[in-house]
């Protein structure tokens, strides 16, 4: 072999067809979906500031974020599922069913650990059902989770009927609890984001999630147990849904079967707005984190501006479509 070995940083004139030149650094940093999300977030805060001076107060933003903290928490774990090349549309329903079971157990004055076990256990079982169908039977996750979305919501209604299930007074008000100067749900969300960002960015396991989503066949050939990774992700989504349900109940004081109805739309929207690629393999927790904040600011802003709920829904729909277009565009530029 006569050629001089070429490593990193060597000033090789990458001759004709060996490799494309690297992208300039500014592009690597700025032409990425997270940057876009961040810019939108700043713009949204300023636009909100025009509507009401409260928007420029960080406290106001933090307090209003508690309204979407549960769904944001679920969006974080959903981000991992989407990066792995799958989708889970059932967590909002799973959250409702688990929360109903949890509240129901509490209404019997059972010991707290039993109630929590029932709540978490139900989430685990729902996650297990999803993974058995998707990984065990090799069915497409979009269809399976549309099915279980309906099923879990239906079961919640069967169990709870149309009535609200109240929880004891002492359990109510997690959003009023301040820890380190933050409302507790916000803190849980931030800690979860840090933990998942670490998992995704710094561990072998996170690396393998990206590899699975990028090219599952190649991942299998490289000895990566992709089925196990996906199964764990669906289970984790189920458990996260039950935790989100417990936070939700504490905030609302009671639960009905329609808890978080349509929440899957917002979760997917957060992941997409944050630059997660719907076909897997790309996305970051930071992106979803920023998108969750952005969405909270937009929703609060729209409410402040007295937009009708129906109009707000339209805005969300438009945002979802635009975010997919933007993400695809950016990725198509960087993928050769």
């Amino acid at each position: 072999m006569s050629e001089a070995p070429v490593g990193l940083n060597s000033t090789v004139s990458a001759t004709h067809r060996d490799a494309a030149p690297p992208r300039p650094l500014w592009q690597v940093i700025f032409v990425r979906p997270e940057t876009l999300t961040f810019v939108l977030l700043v713009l949204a805060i300023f636009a909100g500031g025009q509507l009401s001076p409260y928007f420029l107060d960080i406290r106001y933003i933090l307090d209003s974020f508690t309204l979407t903290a549960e769904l944001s928490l679920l969006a974080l774990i959903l981000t991992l599922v989407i990066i792995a090349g799958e989708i889970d549309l059932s967590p909002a329903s799973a959250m409702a069913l688990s929360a109903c079971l949890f509240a129901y157990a509490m209404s019997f004055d059972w010991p707290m650990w039993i109630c929590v076990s029932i709540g978490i256990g139900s989430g685990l079982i729902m996650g297990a059902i999803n993974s058995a169908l998707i990984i065990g039977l090799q069915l497409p996750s979009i269809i399976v989770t549309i099915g279980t979305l309906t099923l879990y919501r239906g079961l919640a209604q069967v169990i709870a009927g149309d009535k609200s299930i109240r929880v004891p007074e002492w359990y109510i008000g997690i959003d009023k609890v301040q820890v380190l100067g933050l409302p507790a749900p916000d803190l849980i969300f931030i800690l979860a984001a840090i933990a998942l960002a670490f998992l995704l960015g710094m561990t072998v396991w996170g690396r393998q999630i990206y590899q699975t989503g990028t090219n599952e066949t190649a991942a299998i050939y490289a000895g990566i147990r992709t089925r196990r990774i996906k199964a764990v992700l669906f289970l984790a989504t189920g458990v996260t849904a039950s935790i989100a349900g417990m936070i939700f109940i504490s905030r609302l004081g009671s639960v009905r079967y329609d808890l978080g109805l349509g929440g899957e739309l917002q979760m997917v929207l957060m992941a997409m707005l944050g630059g997660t690629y719907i076909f897997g393999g790309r996305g970051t927790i930071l992106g979803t984190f920023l998108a969750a904040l952005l969405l909270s600011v937009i929703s609060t802003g729209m409410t402040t501006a007295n937009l009708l709920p129906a109009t707000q829904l339209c805005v969300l729909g438009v945002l979802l479509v635009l975010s997919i277009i933007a993400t695809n565009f950016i990725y198509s530029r960087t993928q050769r």
Partner: protein
Amino acid sequence: MGQLGSQQTLIEARGISKSFAGVEVLRDVDLHLYRGEIHALLGENGAGKSTFAKILAGVHRPTRGSIALNGDVVEIQNPLAAQRLGITLIHQEPLSFPDLSVAENLVLGRLAGSPWSKVPWKEIEEEAAQLMTLLGVDIDVKRPMRGLSIADQQMVEIARALASDSRLIIMDEPTAPLTPKEVETLFSIARRLRDEGRTIIFISHRLEEVRALCDRVTIFRDGNKVATDTISNLTDADIIRLMIGRSLREYLKKQDAQIGDVALEVKGLTKAGYFKDISFAIRRGEIVGLGGLVGAGRTDVARALFGIAPADKGEILIKGTAVAISDPAVAIDHRVAFVPEDRAIAGIFRTLSVEQNITAAVPEKISNAGIINFSTEHEIATDSIQKLSIRLASMRQPIGELSGGNQQKSILARWLLTDPEILILDEPTRGIDIGVKAEFYDMIGELAASGRAILLISSELPELLALCDRVLVMSEGRITADIPRAEATQESIMHAAVPRSAEVRAS
């Protein structure tokens, strides 16, 4: 043109060349096809015969060159245009609409009338039945395509060609999935079509079929047409020589390696529908070639050894111990590595960095308690890149930005990091520039010299001859030869690789 003896030219192809992504796969091919002849196209895998046929059928468009039909130059833009010109390509496994009836498949794309007019079911069925009678086959035209045997599906394709009054019918390896009786039926129909004055192009690997059916034969090699002649003027030996007649490259020379103990032994490995009763052994330091035609089951054996699609029956012994390899992770634990044939599908993570691609199979080497040590990863990848002289702009660029050869080196680097004792290489030099190929040959030699057992699957005979200590040849799912280096020639390998229909089927 036109008259040539008593023969009338139907198609005159001039200077046909075709490149895919800058790689020339067909070079200046001139060919005359006469009316009323059956013309065989022969050649090794990738010699260009199928590409040429697909150009005639409008599937590909030539990069250069012209095609004249009955003396008029024509542009064959797409398969539909070919159909209108009376050229039909019959696929080995016909593409059809499995849930529509035979009759509906026959008239597909030919139904006239406005979108709202009533479908003339009765006429369609009558016409279809007539065609079937014409062909002399007994197929109920009201049945759905699904459930028809492949032979019957081919008949429907042929019937479709007749329905559109095709003048040129191209059959691309039609006999591979057929039984001998079905082959006979196909041949008698082909002869009848010829006698009606139609032209048939017949692509096959089976020499005796070509001999039994065809009038003239054209042989391709490395994208060139090397000969066209009447079949009776050529012996089998002539044909094989013309097919492979490359000169051996001088630099291809196996290094001497110490041959040691048996590293991998396979006994009676069988997977229904893929391969049967595969037994062989590879020693440390030995390079064993696995030759054969595409579809002979070579890759399937490799996939079974690596646990991707395990075999149903048989034993795999690694260093004398029987092991159950149920998935690739187990294979890696047993220090088996597999560089797959199709890089894009089973090798690279296109959008991820070169670095991540290289370290994908050795997570334990780059991490501590599951947490990645980025500087260790960086060192390991840098080291691999230097050892294999992978040429790139930055280790952090997506691997998709590298050339094919450098992508392939990165995948090889990935597997070398697992420090394999048994290395399976499936067509490792396909789609790679000549210069990089030579580097690969050197590397494979060095790997064997360092005491690894290597199974090299290749369709390039010179590669097998130059590198291997022994060459196993597979044909139709079985090992048909085990040829030591001293006796291995292109002829002996090809002889074992080309299916001998009668023999194989009798067993």
